[in-house]
């Protein structure tokens, strides 16, 4: 059975959609169950929160630019870093990655929608509501006290700071409920992704032919099931502590602060991989296309992703090396954490091998992907430093850690998200993003990023702890903080350029056509943007790169996969 992809009507023009009233558009958003619209809504909603949380970061960097600054008060600053962290993780990272997954997975596996379209809409709306609930705390946080206040307990909200005696008012409750609700949305979407990938692949797409993006989303969704549960349980316990008088985390009555840490981090560390795995997924699609080569070592890439998924469940207490676990616990979690560098290393080397011998095209998308590779390498190496428990006794909770995880979250994940935007924006809108502006965006962002996050390691090495609203002038941290803050301004400018590029290109960009990158996976066989039914006729595939087979009938992938795979099985299918 060879690849059969019915040739869709070629669209040189974007389908002529009659202009609609904004009320109709809005009605369409509220009532839709189309995976593509929901995906775009996730992405749009995440971008709004990205701007908000980015602005919060900028305010913090202004405050920290010089010692003993009075730009914001400690109360405001503590709210800013709590909201920045919570927003970026739960209302930017999760929704933007779920948004891309929602949009791309059905298209890449040849399906017409997700397995449960209405659950999909429900998950989106409950997550969106959670985001609004979190920010409503700025109005309702302190209830009767008058002016609102944001949660200010830090994004990991260690007990017993969250107890009512230390956190009066309702801001902590808004935080708890927002996370609880968005967790329900995350579980719903993860469930949907798993069901879609297991049940709705098009004919011929065995698991061994599944593109790596859906594969990795499968692992990420499995992690979501495991990770969100403990977080939700902990939030419920915290609510009981605050309002029913239970003592799970109430240390004054025999509760345990360390128990909260375990609950939080057994969620929190898999969460890091929930966020970074989709970045790997994008890289696995984008790097091969712009190297003009198949991904190197597909089975190893799948195995490494699954391996990372499992190992990431046993490393959580490396966030707790300084809480007095004792030498046994510290040793175990050092080893578990170091081991995760092995599958991660395999991925980096396989990407390098994919580039090796290719014809690398430096599009804006590829430039961000290369930035990702470089920065993820460094983030991994500082991660190894932090896995060394004694080194972590110095580096933990310092600005070195802040620099390290921003290297992961910005240098790796956000760079790969930008890369994904340049790559899939044409599919989603039918128009290309400006490459020229894209390269400006890339270079400005790279400069700003390295200025901020390379130098941010230094004050950590010089003893500067995180989460301080100001610092002493005699510690030698001034120059570093000033430079770090100036980098933040460059990143802001770059991001505004990106927003401008998206808006301009949406209306004026060149028409993309169905397959602007000469790519190989099924989403590029549909018109851009794809019709609501995705595929007029469900395709049949015979290899991992069905469009390669169509474009290169003289050298199709399935010939190779017959040699490498199990010949009998392939023969039965009659290749």
């Amino acid at each position: 059975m060879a690849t059969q992809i019915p040739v869709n009507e070629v669209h040189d023009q974007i389908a002529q959609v009659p202009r609609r009233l904004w009320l109709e558009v809005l009605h369409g958003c509220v009532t839709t169950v189309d995976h593509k619209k929901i995906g775009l809504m996730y992405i749009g909603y995440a971008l709004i929160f990205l701007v908000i949380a980015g602005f919060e970061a900028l305010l913090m960097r202004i405050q920290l630019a010089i010692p003993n600054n009075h730009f914001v008060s400690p109360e405001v600053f503590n709210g800013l870093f709590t909201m920045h962290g919570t927003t970026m993780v739960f209302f930017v990272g999760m929704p933007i990655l779920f948004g891309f997954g929602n949009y791309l997975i059905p298209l890449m596996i040849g399906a017409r929608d997700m397995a449960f379209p209405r659950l999909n809409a429900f998950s989106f709306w409950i997550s969106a509501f959670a985001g609004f609930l979190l920010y409503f705390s700025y109005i309702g946080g302190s209830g009767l006290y008058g002016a609102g206040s944001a949660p200010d307990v830090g994004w990991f909200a260690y007990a017993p700071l969250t107890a009512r005696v230390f956190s009066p008012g309702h801001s902590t409750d808004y935080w708890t409920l927002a996370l609880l609700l968005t967790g329900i949305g995350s579980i719903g979407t993860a469930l949907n992704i798993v069901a879609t990938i297991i049940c709705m692949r098009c004919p011929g797409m065995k698991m061994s032919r599944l593109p790596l993006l859906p594969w990795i989303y499968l692992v990420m969704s499995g992690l979501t099931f495991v990770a969100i549960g403990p977080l939700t349980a902990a939030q419920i316990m915290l609510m009981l502590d605050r309002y029913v008088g239970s003592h799970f985390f109430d240390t004054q009555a025999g509760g345990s602060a360390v128990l909260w840490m375990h609950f939080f981090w057994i969620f929190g560390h898999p969460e890091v991989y929930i966020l970074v795995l989709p970045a790997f997924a994008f890289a696995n699609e984008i790097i091969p296309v712009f190297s003009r080569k198949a991904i190197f070592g597909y089975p190893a890439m799948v195995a490494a992703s699954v391996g990372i998924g499992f190992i990431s469940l046993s490393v959580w207490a490396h966030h707790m090396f300084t809480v007095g676990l004792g030498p046994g616990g510290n040793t175990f979690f050092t080893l578990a954490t170091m081991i995760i560098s092995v599958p991660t290393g395999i991925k980096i080397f396989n990407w390098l091998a994919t580039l090796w011998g290719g014809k690398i095209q430096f599009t804006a998308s590829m430039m961000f992907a290369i930035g990702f590779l470089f920065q993820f390498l460094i983030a991994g190496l500082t991660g190894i430093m932090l896995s060394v428990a004694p080194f972590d006794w110095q580096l933990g909770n310092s600005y070195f850690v802040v620099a390290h995880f921003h290297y992961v979250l910005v240098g790796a994940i956000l760079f790969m998200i930008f890369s994904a935007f340049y790559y899939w924006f044409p599919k989603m809108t039918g128009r290309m993003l400006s490459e020229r502006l894209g390269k400006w965006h890339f270079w400005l962002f790279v400069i700003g990023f390295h200025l901020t996050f390379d130098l941010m390691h230094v004050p950590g090495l010089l003893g500067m702890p995180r989460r301080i609203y100001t610092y002493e002038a005699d510690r030698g941290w001034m120059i570093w903080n000033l430079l770090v803050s100036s980098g933040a301004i460059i990143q802001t400018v770059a991001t505004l350029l990106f927003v401008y590029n998206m808006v301009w290109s949406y209306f004026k960009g060149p028409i993309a056509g169905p397959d602007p990158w000469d790519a190989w996976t099924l989403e590029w066989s549909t018109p851009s943007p794809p019709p609501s039914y995705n595929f007029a006729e469900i395709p049949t595939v015979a290899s991992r790169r069905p469009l390669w087979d169509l474009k290169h009938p003289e050298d199709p992938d399935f010939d190779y996969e017959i040699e490498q795979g199990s010949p009998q099985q392939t023969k039965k299918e009659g290749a």
Partner: protein
Amino acid sequence: MFASQGWSGFAAIILSAFIADPTNIFAPAGTPARSIFSLSMLVLSITAAIFLIVAGILAYVLVRYRARASDGQGEQEPPQIYGSNQIELSWTVIPILIVVMLFLATTRVIYTTEHAQRPANALDVTVVGHQFWWEYRYPQLGVVTANELHVPVSDHAHPLPSYLTMSSADTDHSFWVPRLAGKMDLIPNKVNTMWIDPETKGLYLGQCAQYCGVQHAKMLIRVYADTPQEFTVWVEHQRQPAVDDPTVAVGRDVFMHNACISCHTIRGTVATGRFGPDLTHVGGRETIASGSVPNTPANLREFIDDPANFKPGALMPPMHLDSHDLDAVTAYLTTLK
């Protein structure tokens, strides 16, 4: 605020980058910090080597395999290579070997630090974290003080480490003096221990490293490493009850007849509060407000008037004393050497 810094401030900022930093983790002055330093050098050299190799390969690949105009419109796709089990095995096994080596080196430092043999003459200090100050109690010596920790110098010939037994009265805190040791958290309803052994006499700085509430930033740590003789003198002095100077009797009365005594202890008086720092010898300390400002009469007066002047969010309320009482109580506290 930016404008008030001016160019001289700028010059100071640039200069400060080159002055020895008081909290540099790479300037160890005690055994725990030194063993972490040696381990970190090993880790840094291994990671630097990995970085150079991998980033070098990346740079080579990007230059060598970039699409060229001479490729002819990119019509010809490069050869498709799908993988190689041998090569992939090599970049699985080599990292595993590196991990094993790093893990063994790490385990050694974990055990030598956390399972160190405790000498019989070691000094015991109980450290209690409070929002937003440090309480230090010396159970063997009957001394209680706050914010400025005094310990003896410990040299190789006569090791005299200080063992800190730590817990918290309210939220989580973390004791971090980078030049002496790694940090250890102070967690309510849990007791942790760590030890320090400053090699040379001097002042070692640090600060709370676990977010503990509004004024986490100004919960500063000062560790004074004294020679054994100086330490003995200091202990003897601290054991004395508070100075009772008749010339400041007015201020003493103000203190004893206001809410001050609910939170502060001054040994030998009716003030027996435990919520705030012990003030028996507050006049002898170099700083106030948990290391935030020098202990001058002017600063002390401003702090008593409203602690938020230096530490917004501090739990001590503004005392609403009139100018006369403020002067008097400041004069009294200044005599408590």
